[in-house]
Protein backbone atom coordinates (compact mmCIF):
# COMPACT_ATOMS: atom_id res chain seq x y z
CA UNK A 1 0.00 0.00 0.00
CA UNK A 2 2.75 2.35 1.00
CA UNK A 3 4.76 1.51 -2.10
CA UNK A 4 1.75 2.12 -4.24
CA UNK A 5 1.20 5.56 -2.73
CA UNK A 6 4.77 6.48 -3.42
CA UNK A 7 4.39 5.29 -6.98
CA UNK A 8 1.29 7.40 -7.40
CA UNK A 9 3.04 10.42 -5.93
CA UNK A 10 6.13 10.01 -8.07
CA UNK A 11 4.72 9.05 -11.42
CA UNK A 12 1.00 9.30 -11.62
CA UNK A 13 0.62 12.81 -10.20
CA UNK A 14 2.99 14.54 -12.62
CA UNK A 15 1.44 12.51 -15.42
CA UNK A 16 -2.04 13.67 -14.42
CA UNK A 17 -0.78 17.22 -14.10
CA UNK A 18 0.82 17.02 -17.54
CA UNK A 19 -2.39 15.65 -19.02
CA UNK A 20 -4.41 18.44 -17.42
CA UNK A 21 -2.01 21.01 -18.83
CA UNK A 22 -2.21 19.45 -22.29
CA UNK A 23 -5.96 19.55 -22.12
CA UNK A 24 -6.02 22.99 -20.50
CA UNK A 25 -3.56 24.91 -22.62
CA UNK A 26 -5.03 24.65 -26.11
CA UNK A 27 -8.51 25.57 -24.90
CA UNK A 28 -7.05 28.51 -23.00
CA UNK A 29 -5.27 29.88 -26.05
CA UNK A 30 -8.33 29.27 -28.16
CA UNK A 31 -10.51 31.27 -25.80
CA UNK A 32 -10.88 34.99 -25.86
CA UNK A 33 -8.55 36.46 -23.22
CA UNK A 34 -11.33 38.23 -21.36
CA UNK A 35 -13.38 35.07 -21.04
CA UNK A 36 -10.75 33.99 -18.50
CA UNK A 37 -9.18 30.58 -18.74
CA UNK A 38 -8.19 29.42 -15.28
CA UNK A 39 -5.31 27.82 -13.46
CA UNK A 40 -5.28 26.67 -9.85
CA UNK A 41 -2.59 26.85 -7.21
CA UNK A 42 -3.21 25.24 -3.86
CA UNK A 43 -1.41 26.20 -0.65
CA UNK A 44 -0.89 23.08 1.38
CA UNK A 45 1.59 22.49 4.20
CA UNK A 46 3.27 25.86 3.61
CA UNK A 47 3.93 25.06 -0.06
CA UNK A 48 2.52 26.59 -3.25
CA UNK A 49 1.57 23.73 -5.53
CA UNK A 50 2.48 23.51 -8.26
CA UNK A 51 5.44 25.71 -7.46
CA UNK A 52 5.61 26.93 -11.06
CA UNK A 53 2.57 27.36 -13.29
CA UNK A 54 2.95 28.10 -16.98
CA UNK A 55 -0.07 29.75 -18.55
CA UNK A 56 -1.08 31.61 -21.69
CA UNK A 57 -1.69 35.36 -21.57
CA UNK A 58 -5.13 36.15 -20.23
CA UNK A 59 -5.31 33.29 -17.77
CA UNK A 60 -6.64 33.85 -14.29
CA UNK A 61 -4.72 32.05 -11.58
CA UNK A 62 -6.63 31.23 -8.41
CA UNK A 63 -4.80 30.41 -5.21
CA UNK A 64 -6.63 28.53 -2.43
CA UNK A 65 -5.26 28.28 1.10
CA UNK A 66 -5.78 24.77 2.47
CA UNK A 67 -3.68 25.35 5.62
CA UNK A 68 -4.88 26.08 9.14
CA UNK A 69 -2.65 29.13 9.07
CA UNK A 70 -3.21 32.33 7.06
CA UNK A 71 -1.01 33.06 4.07
CA UNK A 72 -0.64 35.76 1.43
CA UNK A 73 0.23 35.73 -2.24
CA UNK A 74 2.52 38.66 -3.01
CA UNK A 75 4.39 39.40 -6.21
CA UNK A 76 8.09 39.87 -5.50
CA UNK A 77 8.09 42.72 -8.02
CA UNK A 78 4.94 44.41 -6.73
CA UNK A 79 2.65 43.28 -9.60
CA UNK A 80 -0.05 41.74 -7.39
CA UNK A 81 -0.72 41.38 -3.69
CA UNK A 82 -3.47 39.46 -1.95
CA UNK A 83 -5.05 40.32 1.33
CA UNK A 84 -4.38 37.81 4.06
CA UNK A 85 -6.06 34.54 3.10
CA UNK A 86 -7.30 32.34 5.93
CA UNK A 87 -8.25 28.68 5.59
CA UNK A 88 -10.10 27.93 2.31
CA UNK A 89 -10.01 31.56 1.20
CA UNK A 90 -9.02 32.29 -2.38
CA UNK A 91 -7.16 34.94 -4.32
CA UNK A 92 -7.28 35.40 -8.09
CA UNK A 93 -5.24 37.43 -10.49
CA UNK A 94 -5.50 37.62 -14.27
CA UNK A 95 -2.19 37.79 -16.12
CA UNK A 96 -2.50 40.01 -19.17
CA UNK A 97 1.19 40.31 -20.07
CA UNK A 98 3.75 37.67 -20.93
CA UNK A 99 6.58 37.34 -18.46
CA UNK A 100 7.86 35.54 -15.39
CA UNK A 101 6.20 36.50 -12.12
CA UNK A 102 7.91 35.30 -8.95
CA UNK A 103 5.81 35.56 -5.80
CA UNK A 104 5.92 34.60 -2.12
CA UNK A 105 3.92 34.54 1.08
CA UNK A 106 4.79 37.73 2.95
CA UNK A 107 3.93 36.01 6.25
CA UNK A 108 6.13 32.97 5.60
CA UNK A 109 8.66 34.23 3.07
CA UNK A 110 10.26 30.80 2.67
CA UNK A 111 7.15 29.97 0.64
CA UNK A 112 7.81 30.99 -2.95
CA UNK A 113 6.34 30.26 -6.36
CA UNK A 114 6.43 31.43 -9.96
CA UNK A 115 3.87 32.12 -12.65
CA UNK A 116 5.23 31.97 -16.19
CA UNK A 117 2.97 33.70 -18.72
CA UNK A 118 3.62 32.88 -22.39
Amino acid at each position, binding site marked *: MKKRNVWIAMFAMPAIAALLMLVGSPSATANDQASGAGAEVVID*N*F*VFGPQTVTIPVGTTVTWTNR*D*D*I*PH*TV*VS*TEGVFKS*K*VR*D*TDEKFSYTFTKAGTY*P*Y*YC*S*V*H*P*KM*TGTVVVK
Partner: protein
Amino acid sequence: MPDKKQDLIDQQLQDLNNDGVDRRGFLKCMAWAGTGLVWTMSGGIPVSRAFAKTAGKDAGVVADFTFVQISDSHIGFNKPANPDVTATLQTAINKINAMPHRPDFIIHTGDLSQLSKPSEFDTLDQALKGASAKQIYFVPGEHDMLSDNGEQFLQRYGKGTKGTGWYSFDHKGVHFVGLVNVANLKAGGMGSLGHEQLEWLEDDLKGRSASTPIVLFAHIPLWTIYPDWGWGTDDSAQALSYVKRFGSVTVLNGHIHQIMQKVEGKVSFHTAMSTAFPQPAPGTAPSAGPMKVPADQLQQVLGITDVNYLVSGRSLAIIDSPLGASAPSPAANRGGSRIVGSIFG
Protein backbone atom coordinates in the same frame (compact mmCIF):
# COMPACT_ATOMS: atom_id res chain seq x y z
CA MET B 1 32.00 22.25 16.84
CA PRO B 2 31.51 18.97 18.72
CA ASP B 3 34.35 19.97 21.07
CA LYS B 4 32.73 23.27 21.80
CA LYS B 5 29.50 21.51 22.59
CA GLN B 6 31.27 19.06 24.86
CA ASP B 7 32.99 21.94 26.67
CA LEU B 8 29.63 23.49 27.23
CA ILE B 9 28.19 20.32 28.64
CA ASP B 10 31.26 19.82 30.82
CA GLN B 11 30.89 23.31 32.20
CA GLN B 12 27.26 22.70 32.91
CA LEU B 13 28.01 19.48 34.72
CA GLN B 14 30.06 21.24 37.35
CA ASP B 15 28.49 22.64 40.47
CA LEU B 16 28.36 26.02 38.88
CA ASN B 17 26.75 28.18 41.46
CA ASN B 18 27.32 26.26 44.64
CA ASP B 19 23.71 25.32 44.89
CA GLY B 20 24.53 21.80 45.92
CA VAL B 21 23.71 20.39 42.53
CA ASP B 22 26.78 18.36 41.65
CA ARG B 23 27.51 16.49 38.46
CA ARG B 24 25.31 13.58 39.43
CA GLY B 25 22.60 15.69 40.90
CA PHE B 26 22.62 17.83 37.82
CA LEU B 27 22.00 14.85 35.64
CA LYS B 28 19.25 13.70 37.94
CA CYS B 29 17.57 17.07 37.72
CA MET B 30 17.97 17.35 33.98
CA ALA B 31 14.52 18.84 33.61
CA TRP B 32 15.64 21.66 35.84
CA ALA B 33 19.09 21.82 34.28
CA GLY B 34 17.63 22.28 30.86
CA THR B 35 15.49 25.17 31.92
CA GLY B 36 17.70 26.92 34.42
CA LEU B 37 20.25 29.07 32.71
CA VAL B 38 23.26 30.39 34.52
CA TRP B 39 24.03 33.70 32.97
CA THR B 40 27.48 34.33 34.29
CA MET B 41 28.85 31.22 32.65
CA SER B 42 31.63 32.28 30.33
CA GLY B 43 34.42 30.73 28.32
CA GLY B 44 36.44 28.47 30.57
CA ILE B 45 36.16 30.43 33.80
CA PRO B 46 34.60 28.35 36.55
CA VAL B 47 31.40 30.14 37.13
CA SER B 48 31.19 29.50 40.83
CA ARG B 49 34.37 31.55 41.16
CA ALA B 50 32.99 34.28 38.98
CA PHE B 51 29.97 34.37 41.23
CA ALA B 52 32.15 34.73 44.29
CA LYS B 53 34.05 37.58 42.68
CA THR B 54 31.08 39.51 41.48
CA ALA B 55 28.53 38.79 44.15
CA GLY B 56 29.99 41.26 46.63
CA LYS B 57 30.87 43.95 44.16
CA ASP B 58 27.56 43.99 42.38
CA ALA B 59 25.34 43.12 45.30
CA GLY B 60 22.32 45.33 45.25
CA VAL B 61 22.73 46.36 41.63
CA VAL B 62 20.34 43.69 40.43
CA ALA B 63 17.49 43.15 42.81
CA ASP B 64 15.56 39.94 43.08
CA PHE B 65 12.75 39.98 40.63
CA THR B 66 10.69 37.80 38.38
CA PHE B 67 9.05 38.42 35.08
CA VAL B 68 6.96 36.14 32.92
CA GLN B 69 7.16 35.52 29.21
CA ILE B 70 4.06 34.42 27.34
CA SER B 71 3.89 33.97 23.61
CA ASP B 72 1.86 33.06 20.55
CA SER B 73 -1.66 33.49 21.91
CA HIS B 74 -3.12 33.50 18.37
CA ILE B 75 -6.46 34.87 19.57
CA GLY B 76 -8.95 34.14 16.78
CA PHE B 77 -7.50 30.73 15.89
CA ASN B 78 -10.28 28.14 16.05
CA LYS B 79 -9.01 25.08 14.19
CA PRO B 80 -8.88 21.54 15.62
CA ALA B 81 -5.41 22.03 17.15
CA ASN B 82 -7.17 24.23 19.74
CA PRO B 83 -10.75 25.41 19.23
CA ASP B 84 -10.60 27.71 22.29
CA VAL B 85 -7.38 29.71 22.44
CA THR B 86 -8.97 32.33 24.67
CA ALA B 87 -9.56 29.69 27.34
CA THR B 88 -5.95 28.51 27.24
CA LEU B 89 -4.70 32.11 27.42
CA GLN B 90 -6.93 32.50 30.46
CA THR B 91 -5.38 29.38 31.99
CA ALA B 92 -1.93 30.91 31.41
CA ILE B 93 -3.05 34.09 33.15
CA ASN B 94 -4.45 32.09 36.06
CA LYS B 95 -1.10 30.38 36.32
CA ILE B 96 0.70 33.71 36.43
CA ASN B 97 -1.73 34.95 39.07
CA ALA B 98 -1.07 31.84 41.17
CA MET B 99 2.68 32.47 41.32
CA PRO B 100 3.89 32.88 44.90
CA HIS B 101 5.52 36.23 44.04
CA ARG B 102 3.83 38.62 41.73
CA PRO B 103 6.00 39.07 38.65
CA ASP B 104 7.17 42.63 38.04
CA PHE B 105 5.91 42.49 34.48
CA ILE B 106 4.94 40.26 31.57
CA ILE B 107 6.62 40.10 28.18
CA HIS B 108 4.49 38.88 25.27
CA THR B 109 6.74 37.78 22.42
CA GLY B 110 4.21 38.17 19.63
CA ASP B 111 1.42 36.57 17.65
CA LEU B 112 -1.10 38.05 20.00
CA SER B 113 -3.73 37.57 17.30
CA GLN B 114 -4.36 35.13 14.49
CA LEU B 115 -5.44 37.62 11.82
CA SER B 116 -4.66 41.10 13.24
CA LYS B 117 -8.39 41.73 13.72
CA PRO B 118 -9.47 44.48 16.15
CA SER B 119 -11.83 42.01 17.85
CA GLU B 120 -8.94 39.61 18.43
CA PHE B 121 -6.80 42.32 20.02
CA ASP B 122 -9.83 43.34 22.13
CA THR B 123 -10.24 39.79 23.43
CA LEU B 124 -6.55 39.60 24.29
CA ASP B 125 -6.67 42.94 26.11
CA GLN B 126 -9.71 41.87 28.07
CA ALA B 127 -8.02 38.66 29.19
CA LEU B 128 -4.72 40.34 30.09
CA LYS B 129 -6.56 42.90 32.23
CA GLY B 130 -7.02 40.08 34.71
CA ALA B 131 -3.29 39.42 35.07
CA SER B 132 -1.65 40.20 38.40
CA ALA B 133 1.19 42.01 36.63
CA LYS B 134 -0.14 45.22 35.18
CA GLN B 135 2.88 46.15 33.09
CA ILE B 136 3.01 44.17 29.86
CA TYR B 137 5.62 44.62 27.15
CA PHE B 138 4.85 43.45 23.64
CA VAL B 139 6.65 42.78 20.39
CA PRO B 140 4.67 41.86 17.26
CA GLY B 141 4.58 38.49 15.55
CA GLU B 142 3.89 38.16 11.84
CA HIS B 143 0.22 37.46 12.64
CA ASP B 144 -0.09 40.89 14.25
CA MET B 145 0.98 42.72 11.09
CA LEU B 146 -1.14 40.92 8.51
CA SER B 147 -3.50 43.54 7.19
CA ASP B 148 -2.01 46.96 7.79
CA ASN B 149 1.76 46.56 8.12
CA GLY B 150 1.31 46.60 11.87
CA GLU B 151 -0.34 50.04 12.16
CA GLN B 152 -2.96 48.80 14.56
CA PHE B 153 -0.46 46.86 16.63
CA LEU B 154 1.63 50.02 16.97
CA GLN B 155 -1.37 52.08 18.01
CA ARG B 156 -2.40 49.58 20.64
CA TYR B 157 0.86 48.17 21.98
CA GLY B 158 3.69 50.20 20.55
CA LYS B 159 3.17 53.76 21.76
CA GLY B 160 6.50 55.52 22.06
CA THR B 161 8.40 52.80 20.24
CA LYS B 162 10.69 53.30 17.26
CA GLY B 163 10.21 52.14 13.68
CA THR B 164 7.95 49.10 13.43
CA GLY B 165 7.81 48.80 17.24
CA TRP B 166 11.26 48.34 18.75
CA TYR B 167 12.30 49.83 22.11
CA SER B 168 14.34 49.30 25.23
CA PHE B 169 13.86 49.83 28.95
CA ASP B 170 15.72 49.26 32.20
CA HIS B 171 14.42 47.34 35.15
CA LYS B 172 16.31 46.98 38.41
CA GLY B 173 19.68 47.07 36.72
CA VAL B 174 18.79 44.85 33.77
CA HIS B 175 18.56 46.32 30.27
CA PHE B 176 15.70 44.91 28.16
CA VAL B 177 15.44 45.36 24.40
CA GLY B 178 12.30 44.49 22.41
CA LEU B 179 13.07 43.88 18.73
CA VAL B 180 10.84 43.44 15.68
CA ASN B 181 11.91 40.79 13.17
CA VAL B 182 8.59 40.18 11.40
CA ALA B 183 8.29 43.35 9.30
CA ASN B 184 9.19 43.75 5.61
CA LEU B 185 10.14 40.11 5.15
CA LYS B 186 11.86 39.32 1.85
CA ALA B 187 10.93 36.47 -0.51
CA GLY B 188 12.89 33.35 0.30
CA GLY B 189 14.20 34.75 3.58
CA MET B 190 13.61 34.23 7.29
CA GLY B 191 12.98 36.83 10.00
CA SER B 192 14.62 40.20 9.47
CA LEU B 193 15.59 43.12 11.71
CA GLY B 194 16.66 45.49 8.97
CA HIS B 195 19.34 48.14 8.76
CA GLU B 196 17.51 50.89 10.62
CA GLN B 197 16.74 48.74 13.65
CA LEU B 198 20.27 47.33 13.76
CA GLU B 199 21.69 50.84 13.79
CA TRP B 200 19.35 51.79 16.58
CA LEU B 201 20.34 48.69 18.57
CA GLU B 202 24.03 49.42 18.22
CA ASP B 203 23.41 52.93 19.44
CA ASP B 204 21.12 51.79 22.27
CA LEU B 205 23.77 49.46 23.69
CA LYS B 206 26.65 51.86 23.23
CA GLY B 207 27.97 53.30 26.45
CA ARG B 208 26.36 50.69 28.68
CA SER B 209 28.62 48.90 31.10
CA ALA B 210 29.63 45.39 30.03
CA SER B 211 28.41 44.15 33.41
CA THR B 212 24.82 45.19 32.67
CA PRO B 213 22.70 42.07 32.14
CA ILE B 214 21.02 42.30 28.74
CA VAL B 215 17.74 40.66 27.77
CA LEU B 216 16.82 40.74 24.08
CA PHE B 217 13.33 39.63 23.11
CA ALA B 218 11.73 39.25 19.68
CA HIS B 219 9.14 37.01 18.06
CA ILE B 220 11.13 34.87 15.61
CA PRO B 221 14.19 33.17 17.12
CA LEU B 222 17.36 35.25 16.86
CA TRP B 223 19.34 32.06 16.25
CA THR B 224 18.84 29.71 13.36
CA ILE B 225 16.84 26.71 14.49
CA TYR B 226 15.53 25.38 11.19
CA PRO B 227 15.97 27.46 8.04
CA ASP B 228 13.70 25.26 5.91
CA TRP B 229 10.80 26.45 8.01
CA GLY B 230 12.12 29.99 8.31
CA TRP B 231 12.92 29.49 12.00
CA GLY B 232 15.67 32.04 12.29
CA THR B 233 16.52 35.67 11.57
CA ASP B 234 18.65 36.50 8.55
CA ASP B 235 20.54 39.40 10.12
CA SER B 236 20.61 38.24 13.75
CA ALA B 237 24.40 37.75 13.68
CA GLN B 238 24.78 41.51 13.32
CA ALA B 239 22.54 42.12 16.34
CA LEU B 240 24.39 39.53 18.41
CA SER B 241 27.74 41.09 17.54
CA TYR B 242 26.61 44.21 19.45
CA VAL B 243 26.00 42.24 22.65
CA LYS B 244 29.23 40.24 22.53
CA ARG B 245 31.04 42.45 25.02
CA PHE B 246 28.36 42.02 27.70
CA GLY B 247 28.86 39.49 30.47
CA SER B 248 25.30 38.22 30.45
CA VAL B 249 22.90 38.14 27.53
CA THR B 250 19.55 36.35 27.48
CA VAL B 251 17.56 36.06 24.27
CA LEU B 252 13.85 35.24 24.57
CA ASN B 253 11.81 34.31 21.52
CA GLY B 254 8.51 32.69 20.54
CA HIS B 255 7.19 31.75 17.09
CA ILE B 256 8.02 28.03 17.12
CA HIS B 257 5.53 27.04 19.85
CA GLN B 258 7.95 24.82 21.74
CA ILE B 259 10.90 25.11 24.07
CA MET B 260 14.35 25.18 22.50
CA GLN B 261 17.47 26.48 24.05
CA LYS B 262 21.10 26.98 23.40
CA VAL B 263 23.96 28.54 25.31
CA GLU B 264 26.73 30.09 23.28
CA GLY B 265 29.46 31.77 25.28
CA LYS B 266 27.74 34.38 27.40
CA VAL B 267 24.52 34.30 25.42
CA SER B 268 21.59 32.11 26.43
CA PHE B 269 18.89 31.58 23.83
CA HIS B 270 15.44 30.39 24.77
CA THR B 271 12.11 29.96 22.98
CA ALA B 272 8.80 29.73 24.82
CA MET B 273 5.76 27.54 24.43
CA SER B 274 2.61 29.00 22.93
CA THR B 275 -0.53 29.62 24.94
CA ALA B 276 -2.56 28.45 21.92
CA PHE B 277 -1.31 25.37 20.08
CA PRO B 278 1.87 23.33 19.69
CA GLN B 279 3.96 23.06 16.54
CA PRO B 280 6.04 20.06 15.48
CA ALA B 281 9.71 19.66 16.27
CA PRO B 282 11.88 20.81 13.34
CA GLY B 283 11.69 18.49 10.37
CA THR B 284 9.33 16.00 12.01
CA ALA B 285 6.29 17.00 9.95
CA PRO B 286 5.66 18.12 6.38
CA SER B 287 5.30 21.71 7.61
CA ALA B 288 5.35 23.92 10.67
CA GLY B 289 1.54 24.06 10.84
CA PRO B 290 -0.46 23.60 14.05
CA MET B 291 -0.03 20.18 15.60
CA LYS B 292 -3.12 18.42 16.88
CA VAL B 293 -2.59 16.49 20.08
CA PRO B 294 -5.26 14.62 22.06
CA ALA B 295 -7.40 17.13 23.97
CA ASP B 296 -6.29 15.84 27.36
CA GLN B 297 -2.65 16.45 26.43
CA LEU B 298 -3.03 19.95 25.04
CA GLN B 299 -2.25 21.73 28.30
CA GLN B 300 1.02 19.84 28.59
CA VAL B 301 2.34 21.40 25.41
CA LEU B 302 1.18 24.95 26.11
CA GLY B 303 2.67 27.08 28.81
CA ILE B 304 4.31 30.10 30.29
CA THR B 305 7.92 30.92 31.06
CA ASP B 306 8.93 32.66 34.22
CA VAL B 307 12.34 34.17 34.60
CA ASN B 308 13.86 34.73 38.01
CA TYR B 309 16.81 36.97 38.68
CA LEU B 310 18.48 35.92 41.87
CA VAL B 311 20.97 38.21 43.58
CA SER B 312 22.23 35.36 45.71
CA GLY B 313 24.37 33.42 43.32
CA ARG B 314 23.85 35.99 40.57
CA SER B 315 22.00 33.51 38.46
CA LEU B 316 19.10 33.69 36.14
CA ALA B 317 16.67 30.82 36.06
CA ILE B 318 14.26 30.34 33.21
CA ILE B 319 11.44 28.03 34.20
CA ASP B 320 8.95 26.74 31.69
CA SER B 321 5.69 25.53 33.12
CA PRO B 322 3.07 23.77 31.05
CA LEU B 323 -0.47 24.97 31.64
CA GLY B 324 -1.43 21.51 32.84
CA ALA B 325 0.95 21.56 35.82
CA SER B 326 0.00 22.70 39.31
CA ALA B 327 0.86 26.19 40.57
CA PRO B 328 4.56 27.01 40.33
CA SER B 329 6.73 25.84 43.17
CA PRO B 330 10.35 24.72 42.88
CA ALA B 331 9.33 21.08 43.03
CA ALA B 332 6.50 21.47 40.58
CA ASN B 333 8.75 23.33 38.21
CA ARG B 334 11.34 20.63 38.25
CA GLY B 335 8.77 18.00 37.59
CA GLY B 336 6.73 20.03 35.18
CA SER B 337 9.34 21.58 32.96
CA ARG B 338 9.55 20.01 29.61
CA ILE B 339 12.44 20.26 27.24
CA VAL B 340 11.89 19.50 23.61
CA GLY B 341 15.38 20.28 22.45
CA SER B 342 18.06 20.99 24.98
CA ILE B 343 21.47 22.12 23.88
CA PHE B 344 21.48 22.55 20.20
CA GLY B 345 24.74 22.95 18.33
